[in-house]
């Protein structure tokens, strides 16, 4: 179990262009994979200028996507009871407590559930591991995940299993 980048392949940079009628198109370029984020930004700016010279459409968006795929020896098979429609809705809050972020993890393991309740205790070890990974990240406190508005998530508020289309 290890998702990893294939470093033999180049970075994929994608541009979205839109015309005067609101129609859009999409095009890709491939960049050297040894670039840093800052260097990639320089390449994006250079390509944007080149595209403007070639096209009179509006260059609307530029994205670099890093893809991580499973290794060939990944043999895990999801059990028959797995169901992506079932979710574990985990809500995080920022330091103010007013802004949050909700993450819905598909097909929560039945072992984390508590009979008679949809709520998963915040002390559950698997939930604590996820909360730590989100709030502190791999780099440490202050570098965790954020709300859509860019506020740091500081704590978990609730975790609820949402039984949608749940298998018996």
């Amino acid at each position, binding site marked *: *179990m290890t*998702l*990893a980048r294939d470093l*033999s*392949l*180049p970075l994929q940079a994608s541009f979205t*262009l*839109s*015309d*005067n009628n609101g129609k*859009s*198109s999409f*095009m890709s*370029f*491939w960049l050297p*994979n040894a670039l840093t*984020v800052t260097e990639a*930004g320089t*390449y994006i700016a250079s*390509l944007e*200028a*080149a*595209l*403007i*010279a*070639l*096209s009179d*459409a509006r*260059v609307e968006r*530029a*994205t670099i996507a*890093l*893809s*991580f*795929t499973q290794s060939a020896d990944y043999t895990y*098979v*999801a059990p028959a*009871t*797995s169901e*992506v429609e079932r979710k574990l809705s985990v809500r995080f809050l920022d330091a103010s407590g007013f802004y949050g*972020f909700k993450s*819905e*993890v*598909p*097909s*929560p*393991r039945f072992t*984390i559930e508590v009979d008679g309740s949809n709520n998963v205790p915040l002390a559950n070890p*698997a*939930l604590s591991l*996820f909360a*730590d*990974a*989100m709030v502190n*990240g*791999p*780099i440490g406190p202050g*570098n965790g995940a954020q709300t*859509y508005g*860019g506020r740091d998530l500081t704590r978990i508020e609730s975790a609820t299993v949402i039984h949608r289309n749940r298998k018996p």
Partner: protein
Amino acid sequence: MIARLTLHFTFEDNNRKRAEIRINLREDTSFLQVSQWVVSLETALSQLSDCAVIRAEARYSFVLSGQPIAGPNSDCTLFLYVFLGNDVEQASIAVSSPRSLPVDVVGPYRGFRLAMGAFQLPGVQQALGVITTDTLTPIGNAWIAANYLGSYNREIP
């Protein structure tokens, strides 16, 4: 400059149905740090979900400084195909709504001739030079930065 960085994980259940979760990360997260994020979150998510975690993708969205509006005759169903190659592979880049070429042209032959004419324009030469210098083929080889061939076609609506 990065406008947004999101990390996406794709899950697959026993019926091969898929679902994705998205996580917002700080914009100053490096490519190397994103790899660390993926390992860390994959471990945590695997403890919570019984699905297979089949892939992850980090998407950096960049701030652009280009033209604010599209030209009055712009049309993203028109493409300038730039054919490039090297010793082992050939590929094309399709630039939508090409500038410098009349948008009412139809027919691949006339379009091809016009496209070849457009390649002589200094601005086009310079832009294609940037593309061939800065970018690679899909499998990571260098383009040959000369002998451009192009055609100009209207996409089928």
